[in-house]
C-alpha cells in the first residue's frame, strides 16, 4: 500500500495495480462541471481551484445526513469525461479518480504529462464516504450533486488503473 498526500508531485513511480491511499484535498467534478472548466480554460478565465498537482474525483454524492460531511460517494463512469480530460491535464491536473477504462486519447495525455488515473471501487459509496472528512461546495452550487466540491480525505482507498507509463489495469491486469 502506497500512501500519497496532495497536492501530488511526482507520481511516475506508481504502477497499474498498486493499492494507494490518499490523504489531503481532492476536488469533485463530473460531466457538466468539466464542460464549464474547459470553457473557462478556452476563454483564459480563472478556474475555481488550482489544477496544479490536483486530483479530480468523478463523483456525484448523495446529500449528507445531519452530522455527516457527505452522503454515499463512490465513483462514476470515467469514460464520459474522456473528451474533456486532456485540456485539464495540460493545465497541471495530476490525478483522476473514477471507474472503468479510458480512451486512447486520455492514456496518451496521461503519459505525456506524467499523470495517473486511479480507480475507486464502484458501488462502494457508503464505505468510501467514511474516508471523506469534510466537504464544501466551491463552484456551481446550482448543479446540485454535480457541483464542484472540495473534499478533505483521509486514507482514501484507490487502485492505480492507468499509470504514467500507460500501463492499463483494464487491459493487462496488475503490473505487480
Amino acid at each position, binding site marked *: 500500500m502506497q500512501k500519497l498526500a496532495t497536492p501530488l508531485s511526482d507520481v511516475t513511480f506508481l504502477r497499474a495495480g498498486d493499492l494507494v491511499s490518499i490523504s489531503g484535498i481532492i476536488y469533485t467534478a463530473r460531466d457538466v462541471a468539466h464542460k464549464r472548466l474547459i470553457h473557462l480554460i478556452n476563454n483564459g478565465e480563472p478556474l475555481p481551484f488550482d489544477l496544479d498537482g490536483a486530483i479530480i474525483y468523478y463523483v456525484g454524492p448523495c*446529500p449528507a445526513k445531519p452530522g455527516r460531511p457527505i452522503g454515499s460517494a463512490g465513483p462514476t463512469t470515467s469514460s464520459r469525461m474522456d473528451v474533456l480530460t486532456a485540456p485539464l491535464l495540460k493545465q497541471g491536473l495530476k490525478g483522476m479518480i473514477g471507474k472503468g*477504462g479510458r480512451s486512447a486519447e486520455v492514456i496518451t495525455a496521461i503519459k505525456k504529462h506524467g499523470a495517473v488515473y486511479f480507480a475507486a471501487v464502484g*458501488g462502494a*459509496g*457508503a464505505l468510501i464516504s467514511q474516508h471523506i472528512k469534510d466537504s464544501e461546495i466551491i463552484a456551481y452550487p446550482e448543479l446540485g450533486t454535480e457541483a464542484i466540491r472540495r473534499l478533505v480525505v483521509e486514507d482514501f482507498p484507490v487502485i492505480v488503473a492507468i499509470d504514467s507509463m500507460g500501463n492499463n489495469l483494464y487491459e493487462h*491486469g496488475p503490473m505487480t
Partner: protein
Amino acid sequence: MKTIKYTDIVNKTKELALEANFNLPKDVYNALLEAKEKETSPLGKSVIEIVLKNARVAKEEQLAICQDTGVVVVFAEIGQDVRIEGGLLADAINEGVRQAYEEGYLRKSVISDPVERINTADNTPAVIHFSLVEGDQLHLTLAPKGFGSENMSRLKMFKPTDDIELIKNFIVDTVVEAGGNPCPPIIMGIGLGGTMEKAGLLAKKALFRKIGSKHPKKHLAELEEELLILINKTGVGPQGFGGSQTALAVFIEEFPTHIAGLPVAVNLNCHAARHAEAIL
C-alpha cells in the same frame, strides 16, 4: 373487490425505496460471498470483499449502498379485483418515491427532459410498468436502477434464421465491451422475443429474479447456465480488473414473437442489484 388506500400505497412505496437503497437483498449478498470464494484473482477477491463490507456499512448506518440511487423502476401488478381509493396509483408511487428520496438523503438523479436536462429535484417520476393480473392484491417491485450499468445495456433485432451462437456472442460481447463500467460482478437480464419494447421490458424484469432460480423451460435454463460460464470466462472480473467472477447470474425471460424476427435485449445490473417488493 378489495379497496386499497392511496396513502397506504404512498407509505409502502416509500418504505420499499428506503429498504432497497440501504439493504442489499440477501440473495445478492450471498452470491457475492460465494463469488469471493471462487474468484481466482487476488485483486478481484479484495474488490468483492470491499463490496461486501460496503453493503454491511450501508445497512448499519442506513446509508445508500451506492450514491447512484438511480431512476426508480417499479413493476406494479394490480389484481383485477382491486379498487384504489383516494387518488391515482401512479401519483401514489411517485409521492412515495419523492418522500423516500427527500427523507432518506438519497441522490436526485432524474431530469425533466432528456434534451433540456433540468433536475426535477425529487427523483420523480419513477418509470412504472403496470400490469393487470388475477386476484385482489397489489404487488409492487421497486428497483433503484443505476445508470453505470443501464448505459451498457443493448438491444438488437436478430433474424429468425440467425444461429443461436450469434446471439450468444452478442450477449457476451455486451459484457466485454462494458468492461468495468457496469461495476461487475453483474447480473444479466435477457429478454428474448416479443417486440422491440417487449424484449426490453422482459430483460428488465429478468434482473429481479431470485439468484439461484432456474428458468422453468429446460432449454432456456441450459442457455442461462451456458451464458454464465461464457461470461465468466471473458476475464473481465470484478470492477473490470480481471478475474473469474464477471457475472453472478444470467436470467432469461421470453415471449412469443413474429415469424420474421427475434428481438434480443440485454439489460445489465451492477453488483449493487437493489430491489425490494411488497404485497398490499
